[in-house]
C-alpha cells in the first residue's frame, strides 16, 4: 500500500494548539500543502498574527516573523521590499485583519503589495474569549454583545473580499470555506492561486476562509459547521470577487 495522504513537510512535528474542531487546523495544513507542492519552503517567510494563530511560528517550517496585532501586512511589506525574491505570506484572523489592522490591510492591497494573505474569518474573537469581531453577524451573541449584535449600536459586519475587490492593486480576492471535503478542495486551489500569483508577481492576493469557532460559538464542532453554512455563507457568499487573470482575459 502507498501513502496517499500524510502531514505536509512544511508543517513541523508539533501538535496544533487549536481547540477541538477549530478549522484553523485545516487551513494551516492547506497552506503547508501548497508550500510543499510549489516547492517554496526554502524561500518562504510567514508572518504570524495576534489571535489564536499567534503561535503558528511553531507550526510552520519556514522562517517566521511574529507581528504586532493587525500590522502583519505592514511587516510583510517590509520583508518583501527588503527581499523581493522571498515568498511572503500573512495568516490573520478577523480582529487582526479587519479591526485593528484595517488600514494596513487596505493599503497593502492599494499598493498592490506582492504578498499573500490568508484570512480566517470566524465572526468572533477567539483568543481573548469570544468578543464581537468586525465580522460578527447582526444578532450574534458574543461576550461584548450579550443580547445579540445590535447594528444600531455596534454597526454592521464588514465584507472584506467585497471591500478589497475595489482596489486596483488587488490581484485576487476569493472567499472560500472548509466545511466539507468539496469546499476544502476549492479552498486549497484558491490558496495555491494566491501563492502562485505572488510567484508570478501579480500583486496582492487574499483568500478569506469562513471558519468555525466551536468554543466561543458555544457549539460542538459538528454544530459549528452547520452554523457556518446556515448563517455565515448567506451573509458572506463564497466566490471570486477579484481576479486579475479573469479581467485580463476580458
Amino acid at each position, binding site marked *: 500500500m502507498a501513502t496517499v495522504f500524510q502531514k505536509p513537510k512544511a508543517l513541523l512535528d508539533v501538535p496544533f494548539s487549536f481547540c477541538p474542531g477549530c478549522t484553523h487546523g485545516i487551513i494551516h495544513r492547506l497552506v503547508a500543502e501548497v508550500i510543499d507542492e510549489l516547492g517554496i*519552503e*526554502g*524561500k*518562504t*517567510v510567514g*508572518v*504570524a498574527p495576534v489571535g489564536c494563530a*499567534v*503561535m503558528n*511560528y*511553531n507550526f*510552520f*517550517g*519556514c*522562517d*517566521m*516573523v*511574529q*507581528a*504586532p496585532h493587525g*500590522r502583519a501586512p*505592514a*511587516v*510583510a*511589506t*517590509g*520583508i*518583501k*521590499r*527588503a*527581499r523581493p525574491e*522571498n*515568498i511572503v505570506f500573512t495568516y490573520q484572523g478577523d480582529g487582526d485583519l479587519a479591526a485593528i489592522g484595517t*488600514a*494596513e490591510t*487596505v*493599503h497593502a492591497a492599494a499598493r498592490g503589495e506582492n504578498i499573500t494573505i490568508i484570512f480566517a474569518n470566524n465572526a468572533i474573537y477567539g483568543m481573548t474569549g469570544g468578543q464581537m469581531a468586525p465580522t460578527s453577524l447582526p444578532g450574534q451573541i458574543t461576550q461584548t454583545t450579550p443580547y445579540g449584535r445590535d447594528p444600531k449600536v455596534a454597526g454592521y459586519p464588514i465584507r472584506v473580499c467585497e471591500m478589497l475587490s475595489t482596489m486596483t492593486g488587488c490581484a485576487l480576492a476569493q472567499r472560500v470555506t472548509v466545511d466539507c471535503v468539496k469546499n476544502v478542495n476549492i479552498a486549497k486551489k484558491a490558496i495555491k492561486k494566491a501563492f502562485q500569483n505572488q510567484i508570478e508577481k501579480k500583486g496582492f492576493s487574499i483568500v478569506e476562509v469562513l471558519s468555525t469557532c466551536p468554543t466561543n460559538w458555544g457549539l460542538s464542532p459538528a454544530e459549528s459547521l452547520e452554523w457556518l453554512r446556515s448563517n455565515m455563507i448567506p451573509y458572506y457568499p463564497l466566490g471570486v470577487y477579484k481576479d486579475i487573470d479573469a479581467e485580463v482575459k476580458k
Partner: protein
Amino acid sequence: MTKVLMKGNEALAEAALRAGCRHFFGYPITPQTEVAAYMAKKMPSLGGTFLQAESEIAAINMVLGASAAGVRAMTSSSSPGISLKSEGVSYMAGSDLPGLIVNVQRGGPGLGGIQPSQADYWQATKALGHGDYQLLVFAPSTVQEMMDLVILAFDLSDKYRMPSMILSDGMLGQMMEPVELEDESYEMDLPDKPWAATGHQNKRTHNVINSLYLTPSSLEDLIRERYKRYDYIKENEQRADEYLCDDADIVIVAYGASSRISRTAVNQARALGIKAGLLRPVTLWPFPVKAIEKHIAHAKAFLTVEMSMGQMVDDVRLAVNGRKPVHFYGRTGGIIPTPAEVLNAIKEIAGGKE
C-alpha cells in the same frame, strides 16, 4: 573630501544612505518631512525602497519586517508620530531587532506645535513603548554630528541587536551648516545576520523573530540576558563632550539645540569671571554618568538646560546623587531659550542661589 552646506534633515538622510540603509519607511510630519523627501529622491537611484506608509504605525512595522529580513531599515518622524510607533518599537526591542528611529522633536503634548522642543527625552530614554527595555539614544548638536551619529547608530544597533534612536529637534532639522563629505561612496560591507528571516533555503532550521514568551521564567531569563547586554553597553558606549569642565564651578548639562545655546552662555559667563563649563551628553542612553562623575568633586553646582519642563534633569540628579545641587532652566512649547536667559540662570547660581 568636500565641504557642503546641508540642512540637518537632509544630512541625516544622506548619512543613512552612506551607512548602507536602503529601506526607508515614513510618513509626512513637520518638522521632519525633508528626510522623507530626500529619501524619495535618492533611493531609486540606489535601488532601495522609499515607501510613504499609510501611517507612522505602518511605517515602524515595515521597519520591523525589513529589519527581521536582515537589512538596515529606518523611519523618521516627530513627537506625535513617535508616540504612534511605541508599540512597534517595543516589539522590535523584544524581538532583538536592530533599526533606526529618528525623532525630530516638536512642541507637545498632543498636537502641540511645530517649533522645536526636547520634551520627548523621557519617551526616548524611558518610555517608548511598554516593557523592560532600552533603546540606544543619540543626541547630535550640529549637522556634521547628525551625520556621524547616524552611521554610529546603525553600527551599534546591528552590533547589539537593539533599536537605535536619533533624538534631534526642529532647530537641528531645519538649520543649514557645512559638513565634510567623503567622496560619494555608497558601497558598504554590512555585517552578516545569520539570525534573520531570509528563507532557510533548506540549509538550516527555521529562524523565528518573535517577542512572545508565555512562560514567565523563560521571559525573565531572556530579559535578564538582554540586560546583561545593556550593562555592557552602559560600561562601554557612553559618550559625552566636555567644554571647559575641568575647572568649572558651575557645570551645565545640555544636549542638542540647548547645548549650542548653553555653550554661548558659558563663554559669556567666563568673560564675566564665572567659571562655567558645558557637559554635553552625546548618548542619552547610555547616560554619560562617567563624564558627570569626573566633575562632581570640584563643581559647586550643576545646571541642566532643556527645552522642556525638565526631563533629563532627573538623570543628572540621579548621577550626582545628592552630592552637589542640581538646578534646572527650561522653556517649553516650542520656545528656544536665548543665551542671555541661560547666562542669567548661571549668574543666579553663582550669586549663591540654592
